[in-house]
């Protein structure tokens, strides 16, 4: 990965190979696609389409931002296409992923209770993110789950830094309120 720009460094000395980009960003793309509400059965297709696009457009990558940032801009467009396609087909709004890969669980070293707790937490996070609009969801995922800086997020989503701050503030608030509401419902349900 020596040729890749370090995250957020802004410069790539040499254009990375596709294989380098794939190795570097596959997990990020996969996670982000799931977190942005792509249903489980479509995660493979959407991720595949992202990397086919990366392959096609890699020659255009000029190293002005981190490769992860550039790839995210592709992720966002592909996910938007996916959503439009689902809307055209009259499908229900994307639901949060609910499936835990058994391989992950098997390798996690966690006890079953902890595994179940983690899966449940993951499903709740997906559900709450699904309650955000697309713009807020993208910013929230990149900031809170991927740890990207605000300037990098601004590059990735193509808006200025102030807009990112604004969306992130609103997304955090909405997420917190939705979580509290969910917890209150749980308390009421269990008496």
């Amino acid at each position, binding site marked *: 990965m020596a040729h890749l720009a370090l995250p957020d460094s802004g410069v790539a000395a040499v*254009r990375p*190979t*596709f*294989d380098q980009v*794939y190795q570097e960003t*596959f*997990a990020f793309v*996969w*996670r982000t696609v*799931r*977190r942005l509400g792509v249903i*489980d*059965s*479509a995660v*493979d*297709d*959407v*991720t*595949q*389409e992202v*990397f*086919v696009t990366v*392959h*096609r457009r*890699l*020659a*255009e990558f000029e190293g002005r931002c981190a490769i992860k940032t550039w790839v995210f801009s592709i992720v966002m467009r*592909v996910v938007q*296409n*996916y959503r439009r*396609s689902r809307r055209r087909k009259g499908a229900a709004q994307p639901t949060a*992923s609910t*499936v*835990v*890969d*058994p*391989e*992950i669980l*098997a*390798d*996690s070293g966690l006890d079953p209770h902890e595994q179940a*707790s*983690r*899966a449940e*937490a*993951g*499903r*709740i*996070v997906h559900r709450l993110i699904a309650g955000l609009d697309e713009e807020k969801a993208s910013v929230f995922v990149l900031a*809170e*789950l991927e740890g990207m800086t605000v300037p990098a997020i601004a590059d990735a989503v193509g808006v200025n830094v102030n807009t990112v*701050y604004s969306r*992130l*503030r609103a997304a*955090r608030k909405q*997420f*917190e309120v939705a*979580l*509290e509401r969910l*917890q209150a419902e749980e308390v009421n349900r269990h008496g």
Partner: protein
Amino acid sequence: MDELNSNARALLDAANNFDEPSERDRERVRAAVFLRVGSVAVAGTATLAAAKASSAAASAGPLFASTLTSATLFGGAAVKVGAVLVMGALASVGAYVAFHPQPKPGAVVAAVKAAPMVASAPAVTLAPAPPAAVVDANDLPVEEAKASPTRAHARSVDLEGEMKLLRQADGALRRGDAQAALVALNKHAASYPSGVLSQEREGVRAIALCSAGSTAQGQAAARRFLSLAAKSPLSSRIRSACSVSE
């Protein structure tokens, strides 16, 4: 700016790793991309200068070229099948996803045990089907992962070899030589019983069997394929070749 409150942060921390892909995910998607864009760049052995990539795709022949130009996403029929029978099917990961359902391992294992992928009645003269051609529980991803975490990775290392045999089968089918197609498919099954393209192989096998006049075998294979991968780009071709409706 206000940070996320501790309650929400705790939830995010608790969900840590929930969305992480497995090594199998990484290899499966890589294989699908590999098949859609051609072999050179994604194999990781060459740099990806755009011109080189284009040239690699073009030189890969009409199958790759057609795949590149016709592949679209989310349409169900991701690729115009027809002249790109095998590669068109391979270009979509739909079949693979359908054949590798996440969870429900017990159900999948039971289904496959109950319905081996190679029919036994020799209604047509075939090259002997090697035992490995029968998909058993050990070939399934979940079982495989349990048995040996490294097998899923290892099985993706010879995609070129797998593709070569499936291209042979495709070429034979387009020449009307179903017997030769079945020979190529059996070679694939013998060499790559758990190959990345093993499911696609069984779809093409259904077509070959029906085309060879082994209708009962072919229809049984077709139904098994369709029950698991109804949305595969191969499906319409299989339905047509085998006259099955589901």
